[in-house]
């Protein structure tokens, strides 16, 4: 059965688009057929992060409005043949998305792919609501800081009440993906630690992605980080998260600061 997954957060700029690309690619690298769908109408990004911006002809709005067939709008990834992108429109606004149209398109995508991954826009407005509407699974992307955690709490409340699944009285599966985690700053108490975030949000942890230059590099070369730096710490976190999504049980490792010999000898006093 196809699964619809929404990558959402409430707060902007926390790593939704990065995570959509990385999780989508990781699931595809493990053999599943995957489509990533950009719901950020008007501010599309996913095409850039996937390196497909020059190949966009038709987009989600064209398909929703019936001006193009799904097959015409889907862009197959050049590196992974079982990974596709349905881009957003950069010129239209969110009002062009209709609930009926979105439902139909998601239904068609479910027939073609194992995973339909929806990259939500920030906020709690119409675009974000439509992105989560038909989800079976939600990945709540959160940075270890209070404003992001509170916005995630708010989004979790909406996942539990405003999605089609919730309205049918079913439970939507929710996972926390902690991103841009900086072990050094967490150790110095400059960021919330993992336990604090988990206690506040009380949903299961899908993974912890460290703050990493590889992510920046990846988006600049138009590649999911799991393809551009597959052995780096960020990619490994995304690979593990993808496996957990697919049902494997893998322990979550909290990233630690790599310490030099001297600082290891003297522990926390050297700094």
């Amino acid at each position: 059965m196809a699964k619809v997954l929404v990558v959402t957060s409430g707060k902007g700029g926390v790593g939704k688009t990065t995570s959509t690309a990385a999780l989508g690619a990781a699931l595809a690298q493990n053999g599943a057929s995957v489509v990533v769908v950009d719901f950020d109408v008007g501010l599309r990004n996913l095409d850039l992060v996937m390196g497909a911006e020059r190949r966009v002809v038709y987009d989600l709005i064209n398909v929703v409005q019936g001006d193009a067939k799904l097959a015409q709008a889907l862009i197959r990834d050049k590196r992974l043949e079982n990974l596709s992108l349905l881009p957003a429109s950069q010129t239209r606004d969110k009002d062009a998305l209709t609930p009926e149209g979105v439902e139909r398109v998601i239904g068609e995508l479910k027939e073609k792919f194992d995973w339909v991954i929806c990259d939500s826009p920030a906020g709690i407005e119409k675009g974000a609501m439509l992105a989560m509407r038909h989800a079976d699974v939600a990945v709540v992307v959160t940075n270890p800081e209070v404003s992001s955690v509170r916005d995630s709490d708010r989004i979790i409340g909406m996942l539990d009440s405003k999605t089609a699944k919730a309205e049918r009285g079913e439970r939507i599966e929710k996972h926390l993906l902690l991103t841009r985690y900086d072990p050094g700053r967490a150790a110095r108490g400059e960021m919330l630690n993992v336990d604090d975030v988990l206690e506040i949000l009380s949903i299961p942890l899908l993974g912890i992605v460290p703050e990493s230059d590889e992510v920046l590099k990846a988006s600049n070369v138009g590649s999911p980080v799991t393809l551009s730096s597959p052995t780096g710490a960020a990619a490994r976190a995304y690979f593990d998260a993808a496996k957990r999504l697919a049902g494997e049980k893998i322990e979550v490792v909290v990233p630690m600061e790599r310490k030099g010999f001297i600082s290891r000898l003297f522990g926390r006093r050297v700094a």
Partner: protein
Amino acid sequence: MALVLAPEAPLPNWLAALDAQMARAPTFFDGRPVLADLGALPVGTPDVAGFLSGLEERGIRIIGTEGAHPSWQGVERWGRPFPAAGKPGRPIAIPENVPKGGPPKPESPTMHSAPVEPGSLLIDQPIRSGQSVVFEKGDVTVMGSIGSGAEVMAGGSIHVYGAIRGRAIAGLAGNPKARIFCRKLQAELLAIDGVYQTADDMPGTLIGRAVQAWLEGEQMKMAALD
């Protein structure tokens, strides 16, 4: 002591939120004296007097205003501005982020959870930021936490088997015997029968602990439970 209403711009949205709140708790105001704190309104706000009339049309009894700008016409009619109160008044929570075009639908788990017995409401999941639970008829028990930016209002007591990080407002319909209990106090605001304390007023030694709060006269008391 009076309730304090602190309207925010834009006023039509704020009124819509108020209407939604009143629809959920129809007897909330029931002839109680209300003080309008206008301090948050921009100087250029049009027709503040008309807005105050609108409150009266809703059956809200305005006994005074606070923070009115001298340039606003006709506000004097609502009583002389109060001096800054020595004691906190009675706060009223208005739901945030009201969508345009009408009162918000409550984002469950609001009223549909089955009561364990008449006069009590049991909620067996966390109350998330932005959610508002109003239960006038009696006690509310939450099997989880009240998130930052979430609120629970009960006619009776509030029992939280988790942390209070948002607001808990007990004794809503004028019940000074109501109490608030929680496993972990990290609240933004606690109120009983209109007497409130914000996080800044709470004793630092109680933050993070299991606590109960009750009223002695017009004063809120708190003590650790463990």
